[in-house]
C-alpha cells in the first residue's frame, strides 16, 4: 500500500478535531418516571443539599483528532486518514486530587482509516529514534464508504469503544461511587452492566425533549434544582433511558432562562435507585460546574472534564509535530520529493 499525503485536504482543513454529528431518532417522552405527570416539576435539594456520596466520582471523556489526510495510490486511488483518539478518566476523591493521582485509564489509539479494500498492512508504524522519541503505530481499519462522515464516525466509534471500556472498568471499582460520562449514554449500556453508577452528562441542551406545557418548569429551575425524572423511549431502540435537567448556575436577566442547564441521563433502573442517583449526580454537576471566565463552555463543561480534555489532547501529541513526522515517514516511500504548497 503506497500512501501519499493529501496536502490539499490536510492543510486546508488543518488537523481537525472531528465534529460531532448526531442524527435525531424518534422518541416518546413519559413524564411519570419519578412523580405523576400532573405533578411534574422542580426538586429542591439536589445541588443545595448534596447527597453524601461514599467514594470517588469518575469523569470520563475522550478526544479525537485527524492527524493527516492521505491518498492510497491505486487505480482508482482511495481515501486514507490518519486519526488519533485518546480517552481517560479523572477520578476525583476526597476533594483533593493532583493530576497524577486523578488521571487514570488513559488510552491512546491511532488509526489509519481507508476505503481501500483489503489493505496489505495491519499497522503503519514510525519507530522511535534518539531524536524522534516514542514510536507511532497506526492501526489500519477499513471504512466501507468514501463519505467523509463515515471516516469521522469510525474515529468516533473507536473513541466510544474505549470510553465504554473505561466506564465499565471504573464501575467495577469498589472505591468509585459514580461514573459520569460526557455525552448521552449508549443504549446498550444497561444499569446492571454499569453497576448502577453510570450517568451521562449532556452539555448542550439543544433538544429539550419535554412537551411544551412542561417547558416553564425548565425555565423556572433555580440554582441547584433539577427537574423530575422523565423517561425517553426510542422507537427503534432496544431500551430506554431516564433523564432530567439540572440548573448549574443561577440565571440573571441578561441570559436566556434556558441557559446554564445540563441534561443528565441514566439507564433504566428501579425508581428509588434512580432518584438517589439523579440527586447525587445533580449535586456533583453543580459542585464541579466551571466559571464563565475560565471556560467558554462554562458552566456546563465541568472543571474535571476540562482538565481531562486538556490532558488527553496533550497525550495525543503536538499536532504539527505529528503531521511532520507522518509526512517524513510517507516521504521515505521512495517517490520523488514533492514540494509543499503554501497555505492560501
Amino acid at each position: 500500500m503506497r500512501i501519499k499525503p493529501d496536502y490539499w485536504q490536510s492543510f486546508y482543513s488543518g488537523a481537525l478535531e472531528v465534529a460531532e454529528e448526531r442524527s435525531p431518532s424518534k422518541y416518546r417522552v413519559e413524564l411519570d418516571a419519578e412523580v405523576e405527570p400532573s405533578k411534574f416539576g422542580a426538586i429542591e435539594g439536589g445541588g443545595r443539599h448534596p447527597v453524601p456520596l461514599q467514594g470517588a466520582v469518575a469523569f470520563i471523556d475522550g478526544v479525537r483528532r485527524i492527524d493527516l489526510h492521505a491518498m492510497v495510490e491505486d487505480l482508482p486511488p482511495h481515501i486514507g486518514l490518519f486519526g488519533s483518539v485518546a480517552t481517560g478518566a479523572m477520578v476525583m476523591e476526597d476533594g483533593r486530587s493532583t493530576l497524577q493521582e486523578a488521571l487514570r485509564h488513559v488510552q491512546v489509539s491511532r488509526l489509519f482509516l481507508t476505503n481501500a479494500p483489503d489493505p496489505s498492512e495491519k499497522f503503519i508504524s514510525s519507530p522511535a529514534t534518539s531524536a524522534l522519541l516514542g514510536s507511532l503505530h497506526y492501526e489500519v481499519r477499513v471504512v466501507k464508504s468514501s463519505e467523509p462522515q463515515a471516516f469521522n464516525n469510525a474515529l468516533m466509534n473507536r473513541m466510544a469503544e474505549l470510553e465504554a471500556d473505561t466506564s465499565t472498568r471504573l464501575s467495577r471499582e469498589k472505591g468509585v461511587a459514580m461514573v459520569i460520562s460526557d455525552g448521552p449514554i449508549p443504549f446498550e449500556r444497561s444499569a446492571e452492566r454499569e453497576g448502577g453508577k453510570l450517568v451521562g452528562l449532556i452539555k448542550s441542551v439543544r433538544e429539550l425533549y419535554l412537551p411544551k406545557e412542561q417547558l416553564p418548569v425548565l425555565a423556572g429551575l433555580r440554582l441547584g434544582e433539577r427537574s423530575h425524572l422523565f423517561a425517553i423511549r426510542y422507537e427503534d431502540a432496544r431500551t430506554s433511558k431516564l433523564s432530567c435537567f439540572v440548573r448549574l448556575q443561577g440565571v440573571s436577566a441578561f441570559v436566556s432562562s434556558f441557559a446554564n442547564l445540563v441534561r443528565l441521563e441514566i439507564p433504566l433502573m428501579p425508581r428509588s435507585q434512580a432518584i438517589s442517583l439523579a440527586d447525587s449526580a445533580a449535586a456533583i454537576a453543580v459542585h464541579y460546574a466551571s466559571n464563565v471566565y475560565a471556560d467558554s463552555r462554562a458552566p456546563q463543561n465541568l472543571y474535571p472534564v476540562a482538565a481531562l480534555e486538556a490532558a488527553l489532547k496533550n497525550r495525543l501529541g503536538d499536532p504539527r509535530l505529528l503531521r511532520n513526522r507522518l509526512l517524513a515517514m510517507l516521504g521515505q516511500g521512495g517517490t520523488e520529493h514533492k514540494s509543499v504548497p503554501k497555505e492560501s
Partner: protein
Amino acid sequence: MEENSPIGFVLGHRPASTLEFFVLVEPGNYLELDDVVYVDSPVEGHPTDAIVRFYGTVSEVSQYHEGIQFDSDTQIVRAGILPANVAYVGKVVVTKIVPEIFVSPHPADPVFRAKGGDLEDALSFSSMAQRIPAGILRSQEPFYVNFDFLNGSKGAHVSISGISGVATKTTYATFLLYAMLNYQHPKGVPAADKASARIIVFNVKGEDMLFLDKRNSKLSAGDEEMYDRMGLPVEPFRDVAFYTSPRTGLGVPTPSTDQRQADITPFCWTLREFARERLLPFLFADADSETTSMAGCISSIATRLERLSGEGSSESPFLLVQGRLIGDLRSLIDTLEEDIYGNEGEEEGGGRKRTSYWFPPYEHAGTKNAFLRKLRVAAEALAGVIRSDIDHPEHYKIDFDAHRLTVVHLSNLKSAAQKFIVGSTLKRLMKEKERTGRKPYVFVLLDELNKYAPREGKSPIGDILLDIAERGRSLGVVLIGAQQSASSVEKRIIANSSIKVNGRLDFAESQSAEYDYLPGSFRLRSCIIKPGTMILHQPDIPAPVLVRFPMPAWATRSEEVEEVEASSRKEARRFEDLFAG
C-alpha cells in the same frame, strides 16, 4: 543507596544549554538554592565517545500548578475541583564541564546531588594546588578558595562589599586570614609561606580588633563545630602586635585606647622620618587638594624637607632649619608662617623682595596661604603622632615585620590623620617589598576603602592603593579591602581583585556593574542575607557561592575575653601579693 538515586531530570520543556539548564525535581525530593548538582550526558558521534559531566549550582527554584490558566484556579485546585500538576523546577548554572566538550545536557537525563568527592570536583576544590577554607556551604560541607588567586601567583586581592553593621565585612576578612594561617592540609598553604606571611590590619572603627589575641568566651558549640568542619582549630591569633595612636597632650606617648592598655604600642613618626620618607603629601590626602598649583607647592616643600632630613645629625629626630630645631608640625608651621609673612620691617628696609627659604619665588600668595591652612588642619589631627620629643623613637615605629600580625588601631583619629597613617605605612611597605621581593607575602586589611581610594578624584593615598592593586601581585602585597559600596571605589582596584565577596547590599548598590559576577537571583538575595553569610566569587568557579562563616574564635570586645585568662591574672596577682607580703 539514596545517594545514587537522581533528584530529578533535565527539563525537556525548556532548552538546556551549555551554561544553564533546568531540572524537574522528582516527587519526594527537594532542591535548594546553592545546591550543587551534576548530570552525565553522553555525546553521540564524538570521536572519544565521551560522557560529559555538567556540574552546576542551583540559582533558582520554583514550583507551580501546571495546566491551569488563571490565578484563581489555584483555589479550585486546592478545593479538589480542578486537577492540576505541581511542577517543581530548579534552574542550574553550569560551573564546570568535564571533559571540556561544550555540548549541552540531554533532556530527561538524570540529575544528581553532588556530595563529597563530586562536590570537590564540582567546585574545583580537587584541582586547587593550594587552598584555604572560606566558609561552610549550605550542604554543611566546607568551601575553599584557591590560594593561588590570593597570593599573587595567579591573582591577588580580595574585595569585600556590604552594608556596615549587617554585612560583617571585617569579621569575614579576619576569618579568611585566620583560616589561611591555621589551615593544615596537604593542599593548604605551605607551612613556610604561612610562618613567614605578614598581616597588617588597619582598624578604623571601634576597638573590635584589639582582642585578636584573646580567646572568645562567647563562642557557641555550633560555631566550634563549623571551625571543626573546616579543619580549623578554635583559637585566637598568635604573635600579634598592636599599635595605636597616642593620646594627645601627654609628654610620653601613651596608648589612646579604652579597653586595652597592655601590650599595645603608641605609634609616632619623628619629623626627620616624616621628611626623609616624603610623607608630606599624605597630609593632603583629600582628593580636592590635587589642584596643579597646590600639588606643586606640596611637592616643593616635601623636597625641601627631604633635603633637610639629610642635613645635621641623622641621630636626632629633630630637623635643623636655619639654625633652629623643629620637631613637630606645629613648629614647622611657625617656620613657614615666618617665611611667608616675615618680619614687617624687613621688606621695606632691603628695598628688594626677600627670597623665601621654603617656597619657590613664583608661588602665589593664595596658594601658600591655602597650603598653610590645610597644614594647620592636618597638624591638629596629627598632634602627638608626628613628634620628635621622644627617647628611642624606634620603639614607636610601626614594625610590620616583627610579628605575624600587626594591628594598627586608628579609630580614635580624625579621618585626615587616618589617611596619613595608612598612606605612610603602605608607602613604607611598598618600598620595603620592592627591596625584598614577593615572599614573604604581606596581607593588608583595610576597611572603608572607598574613603582611601575613591572613584572620583586623585589622591596620594589612592595612588598607593592603586599601585598595590596593580603591582602588589608581583611584590607579594595582597590587599583585602572592605567597603560599603564597591561602586564608589577606584575601578581598577575592584577590577584587580581576584576574589570578590559581598554581604548584605543595599538594593541600588546591588544593581551596579561592580556586582556583575552576581546573577539576577543573587543580586536580590544580596539584599536579604543575614550577618554571618557571604556571597563569594572566585575565578575557579564561574558562579558565586553562598557561604556561612563562624563567629570569631577571638574576642572582639573586652567582655568576650575568656574568663580563664582573667582568673589566671587574678591568680598571678595573688602570688605577687604573697611574695610581697
